């Protein structure tokens, strides 16, 4: 028997999550799949969808604050998001189908911590910060430090994701997102890549590239970034960065694709995305 609790404030929610075997839910789009298997039911589920502290998208010292219980449909529709972080809206539109986007939440995607979670590389590329609350207080974690191992996050037992902070984006911030799935829609990624950089002439500065489905966690492609950072970007350099990316990831063969294909396509996707920052081949 599963007990469902519906707290109405953050502190109530944190108390409820202190119980043994309690799991936080919002859209339930991951939990319902897992719990469908016999003998996999959770003892207590704590519904976060009514907590005012976790909802909304708002300005935050030039950047944006996005509540953990914000749905992907809300992200897609948010004017602030579309204007400042178009890749966030683009990514939100590739998560499942509309029904999933109407229920699934930003915080849920992060906490579920699937290496194929489509939002995760985006937060990484945009240098987001995660706001976490626990009974002993709240803290902030840079997104780069959020995913520690396969399906393991920086969340301690009983802690909750409250929201995300995205640092200010100006018009020079180039943002790119690309997902490669088995089919054009409603498919879990074989490779997903997000990129953010500031364009100065033919150079990219502050380049951040992150990828999903190519390692046990979403990863920054630091070797690729280092090759390109501050250098005149040529097709050869973009290709070299792609190959560097392919070398620094550790994909696996699974039912959706092969490790070889993932490396190969990652290399080509990174190359294309870099060149696209200069209006090149897309």
């Amino acid at each position, binding site marked *: 028997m599963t007990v469902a609790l519906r707290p109405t404030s953050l502190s109530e929610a944190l108390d409820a999550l202190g119980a043994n075997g309690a799991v936080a839910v919002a859209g339930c789009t991951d939990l319902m799949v897992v719990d469908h298997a016999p003998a996999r039911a959770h003892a207590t589920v704590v519904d976060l969808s009514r907590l005012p502290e976790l909802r909304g998208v708002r300005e935050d010292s030039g950047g944006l604050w996005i509540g953990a219980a914000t749905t992907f449909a809300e992200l897609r529709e948010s004017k602030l998001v579309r204007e400042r972080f178009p890749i966030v809206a683009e990514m939100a539109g590739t998560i499942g189908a509309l029904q999933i986007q109407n229920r699934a939440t930003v915080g849920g995607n992060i906490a579920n911590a699937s290496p194929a979670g489509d939002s995760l590389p985006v937060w990484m590329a945009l240098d987001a910060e995660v706001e976490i609350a626990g009974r002993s207080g709240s803290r902030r974690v840079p997104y780069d430090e959020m995913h520690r191992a396969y399906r393991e996050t920086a969340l301690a037992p009983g802690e909750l994701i409250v929201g995300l902070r995205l640092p200010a984006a100006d018009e020079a911030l180039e943002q790119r997102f690309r997902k*490669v799935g088995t089919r054009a829609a409603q498919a879990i990624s074989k490779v997903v890549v997000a990129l953010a950089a500031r364009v100065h002439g033919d150079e990219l500065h502050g380049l951040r590239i992150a990828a999903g489905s190519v390692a046990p966690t979403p990863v920054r492609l630091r070797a690729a970034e280092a090759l390109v950072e501050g250098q005149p970007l040529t097709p050869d350099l973009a290709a070299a960065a792609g190959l560097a990316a392919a070398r620094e990831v550790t994909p696996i063969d699974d039912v959706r694709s092969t490790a070889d294909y993932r490396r*190969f396509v990652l290399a080509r996707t990174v190359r294309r995305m870099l060149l696209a920052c200069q209006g090149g*081949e897309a």
Partner: protein
Amino acid sequence: MSFMQEEKRPGKKKIKTTRVVNGLDVEEEVWVDDLEAPLFKPREECRLLGTRMKRVDGPAKLTGAAEYTSDVRLEGMLYAKVLLCPFGRAKVKIDAAPALASKGCVHARQLVDETKYLGQPVAVVAAATPELAEDALRALVVEYEPLPWVLDRGQALAEGAPEVRSRGNLGRPTEDGDAGEVEAAFAQCAVVVEQEYSVPVQHHVCLETHGTVVDYRGGEDAIVYCSTQSTHGIVGDAAESLGLRKAQVRGIVQHMGGGFGSKFGLERAGTLACEISREQKRPVHLMWNREAEFLTSGNRTGAWQRVKAGANKDGRMLAMSSDVERYGGIGGGSHAGLPYLYSVEKSLRKHASVYMHLDTNCAMRAPGHPQASFAMESVVDELAAGLGMDAVEFRKRNLNSPAHLRQLDRVAELIGWNEHPNRTAPGSVDGFEAVGIGFGCSRWGVGGSPVCQVDVRVMNDGSVTAEVGSQDLGTGTRTYLAAIVAEELGRPLDGVQARLGDSRMGNANGSGGSTTTPSLAPAVQDAARQMRGVLSVAAAEHFGCAPEEVVLDPDGARAPGGKLTWLELCALLPPEGASVRGTWQSDLAVSGVACTQAARVRVDLLTGRVKVEKMVCLQECGRPLNRLALESQIRGAMTQALSYALLEERRVDPQLGIALSADLETYKIAGSLEIPEFVALVDDDDLREGVAGVGEPPVIPGAGAIANAVFNACGVRLRHLPLTPDKVLNAIEERKSS
């Protein structure tokens, strides 16, 4: 006109009638419809048949009012669910007591002691709600003792492999042909291709899973609602499982969410539901979930096909030898044989089944044909390429039927082949993308069966019903049942109520082999023509003319003696109305329909993704009854073929003995964004008067056409379905480095 050369017109006869000309009675001969000959009206006279009619049950389906088996809710109904064995094979020990003790559960039992295939149902429970039935499943205490299994070819044929059946895992091969003759023919060939082609196991993916709702509460009668392709076919099995006589069981199939060959009987879900209902004397609802659907409900046979074929310099295929393995799980599998469709002068073939611990194959939309077609269309294309010959021209030199020859020309024109640069040599792998065109052909036997009995009734208030115990799988049977009668009686489409899907109605065959229409429509026309005769006689008595002189049209009836509205005409009938029964008419069914398809693809040379941009299909169907339904059938078939070509594949892990693709997340079918521009055409050069079904032929050649288009685009030949981007990319890299 000389009586030596008596003119004949199909479906017409001449009668003598009297006409007043200038005050004088003049006797003259006129042509009228022969009410004894149940032919369809000439095409040009039809208001409904041959047009694009929306399906009569469309609004009910669109609004959710249509009741499918899964939707049936009855008072006191139990929900049953099954537990599937998660291992390739296992001994099973189940303690059902905790399940029986769980809330709302009234039935829980073990089904087998030892499983025969991966995913076999091992226990069934029934409870008051679906959720309580899930809880009861969880409460079962199950001990599995895994047994060695064979889940792929290597395991099945390994030394000392566990036996799937007592006579070994490799079935006795069937062989025919003369090896010496074929060898000699190969010696005459200018080009020879020897390759292996494989196709995976494909699922039916019916939108509605298998399932049955049984309404039995003890006593003498039961109603069985079933998602089946054979309303009459389920009655016997249901009666046996319920412990009743056949006459006590009524089968109901109002709306069906697809069968594609997998639902000819009551099936396992149905017998279990009947057994529980018999024991509990309560209605039982048992629908498979998607996992059970994918693991236990049959599938399209996988196949490995080694083919050697050769042609002379004129492009005539002289020789072919083939060695085919069928993968039908615990079943023998199905394969249509090679050479397929094309004529090859000398051939030699060998077929064998390889048995594994997976559920048995079953009929699936043209059983065995797409597998053979994929290999054949590929090898045909390889020979054409080997000779540097136009792929359309090469096909024409090896096909006998005039229908295919004209279809190839038309399809080539519609897909843009004549302007395409790669007609005699494929494109290159350089650059970012490449566009190619490929072709494929098929033929289907069709033919009707003489079992249908259609009852048409007209009441004296003007209401009309047409009924038969056939079923509408979603293909439009209900619509032409009404339309044929409406056409003949001059009524609007909504002036006839079509009723089907009830075993208490007239006999009908199961829907398989594309035979529903050629079996049913002739019987409907027979009944409609008889009813027209009855009404014509009634009107003729009223007008004082010959029945043949009466014309039924949307205004009612008219004859030389005057006019009657429809209501006035029907009011002439006795209070109980009039009813007739129609039977099959062999001259209204055709055998043999040809189909030709072409696909245009765009290959992304950097990611290996294949995007099908356009597919054209030209399909013979005899006389088209409802163009909209026919086009819809053809589009659906092309969609399924595209999905087979690019996406679908059952996957298992032979080491762990587990299923890897038993849901729609891991077993992907084409979605709306994969759908290309479809040009689905009824072949109007087919002027035969009989009708045919076209569920099957257009699903056959699509995968071959798509693979051929990929080759045509960039010169890489993919011989193993599905054409996933990794395979395409590997082939591109191989070609680049060679």
